[in-house]
């Protein structure tokens, strides 16, 4: 018997738009994290949820083509990012994880505060996205 495919055109079209919004908001949360609510963890979870929504709307193969990362590798890279932020300050003779910040002038954004917490948070972000998706996909792919 031919398998019935549900008509999910509405879902697919609307998801393309919605995931874009979620991605943008998660990126905002990630950057806002230093002095406001947000940060790598919550931003990462939101990105993971956006990717999951894509998985729901489309099938596994399409998304694998669209997002060609290995999520487990992402965990490793994220951990390295986080730890090397701490190690970097050791190389200059400061204690582990010493935190630096300064204000820079950028053409469009104006004055922006850049801190060494940012690469650390990027590491957290990558770890969270990688771990959440690895765990969920491990179960999803198993069910065949």
């Amino acid at each position, binding site marked *: 018997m031919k398998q019935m495919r549900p008509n999910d055109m509405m879902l697919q079209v609307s998801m393309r738009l919605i995931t874009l919004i979620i991605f943008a908001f998660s990126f905002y949360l990630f950057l806002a994290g230093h002095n406001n609510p947000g940060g790598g963890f919550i931003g990462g979870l939101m990105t993971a949820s956006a990717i999951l929504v894509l998985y729901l709307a489309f099938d596994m193969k399409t998304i694998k083509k669209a997002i060609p990362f290995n999520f*487990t*590798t992402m*965990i*490793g*890279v994220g*951990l*390295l990012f986080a*730890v090397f932020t*701490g*190690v970097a300050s*050791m190389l200059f003779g*400061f*204690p*582990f*994880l*010493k*935190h630096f910040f300064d204000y820079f002038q950028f053409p469009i954004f104006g004055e922006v505060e850049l801190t060494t917490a940012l690469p650390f948070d990027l590491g957290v972000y990558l770890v969270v996205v990688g771990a959440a998706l690895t765990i969920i996909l491990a179960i999803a792919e198993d069910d065949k």
Partner: protein
Amino acid sequence: MNNLIILPIIIPFIIGAVLIIFPKHHRLQRVVSGFTAVGMLLLSIYLAIVVYQNGIIVLEAGNWSAPFGIVLVADMFATLMILLTSLLSAACLFFAFKTITPQREKFYFYPFYFFLLVGVNGAFLTGDIFNLFVFFEVMLLSSYALIVNGGTKYQLRESFKYVIINVFASALFVVAVAWLYSVTGTLNMAHISERIAELEQTGVVNVIAIMFFIVFASKGALFPLYFWLPKSYFGPPAAIAALFGGLLTKVGIYAIIRVFTLVFYHEPSYTHKAVIVTIAGFTMLFGVLGAVSQFDFKRILSYHIISQVGYMVMGLGIFTPLAVAGAIYYIVHHMIVKTALFLFAGAAERVTGTTDLKKMGGLLKTHPVLSWLFFISAISLAGIPPFSGFFSKFPIILAGFQEEQYIISGVALLVGLLTLFSMMKIFSYAFWGKQKHTNEQAKLPIGKLLLPIAPLVALTIILGIAAEPIFQYSLQVAEQIMDPSIYIESVLKE
């Protein structure tokens, strides 16, 4: 200079993260992890020497000064534990190279192995009670992953119980930290100790102390919270079981000793001499009775972990410098010998294909080296001179008699006797008697398996022969941890 003490935490962290990225390159993983294990061993020896010569090293992470930021404190006790950890992890890792199957390696065995070391070393080094919780969780999460590694039916079934009891204990840990924070308003252990000294340890502080004891007791497998241990340590492969048996419960014991010498030391007549000593007695007795009743190589060893954890806690409970030094010596002895014994069980299982004593026999004839090395470790565990077991039990029991704790000392002596009995049971069933394994099995070469274990056996002999200097060292460690003002001054710099 102070950054030196973060290295035992971040080196395994970096290596673990790198190994996640290359999960399929088994050869690369082995080479990298082997070199790291040796490097860690050298580093921890260096660290122990530096701390021995220069006193306590304190690192304020992120340059936030003491009571506000997180501190890492390397005193003699912590560096000793890190040294032992590196030693055991190297031995188990080299044993794993020879025994572990590629399917298990594929499940991120090496990354989790190193994350486990991150958690363990972090728990030894941290000077912050909440940070201790975090490192405990790092350690436990990696241990969950390692204990189900391979995913056999038995492992999945028993590990679930292991995970649930630990999750529950961790929740209680957070509760205890919350109470402590609401009473003292700080998380830095040196600062907490100061505040508790001002408060006087009564009422609610005692409740918090016992709460911490319950939390660490369930991680360290004390009576009555030990039931998860024997079954869950039976499932995983020998290298992992040996690492867990040698290491994990001792992290709980370390935390008990640290907390009850640094923070809750004002009411020893209640917390130490009543609660801890009683629990220690029951732990020893029930552990050894469990071992006597078993007929399986690995299960007997698992039950002996419980009974011997009781000795360490008994040393703390008697709470004189001699007894605490004995407890520290006992930890050193136990970690080395117990790991060696578990690895011997793995080697014997390699030959006979089982760990059921009734189906084993005659190993002495076919594998004499294995048998005699096992014999040395076994009688060392039971406390026969001139090996390390005797010289580590002796000060604890001596201190027990000095402090007129006759019942617990009697129990300790009885438990020593029963330990000897169950060790001899293993020896007579598995090594003596008729050969029950086939001739093909008898020809299996296991010389390479014994290479990582031999240094551990050599160490137990050395620890016995050179008991005097090592006991002096333990005594110094004990005096350092029993005088909290040294720790507090070096952390808070007053």
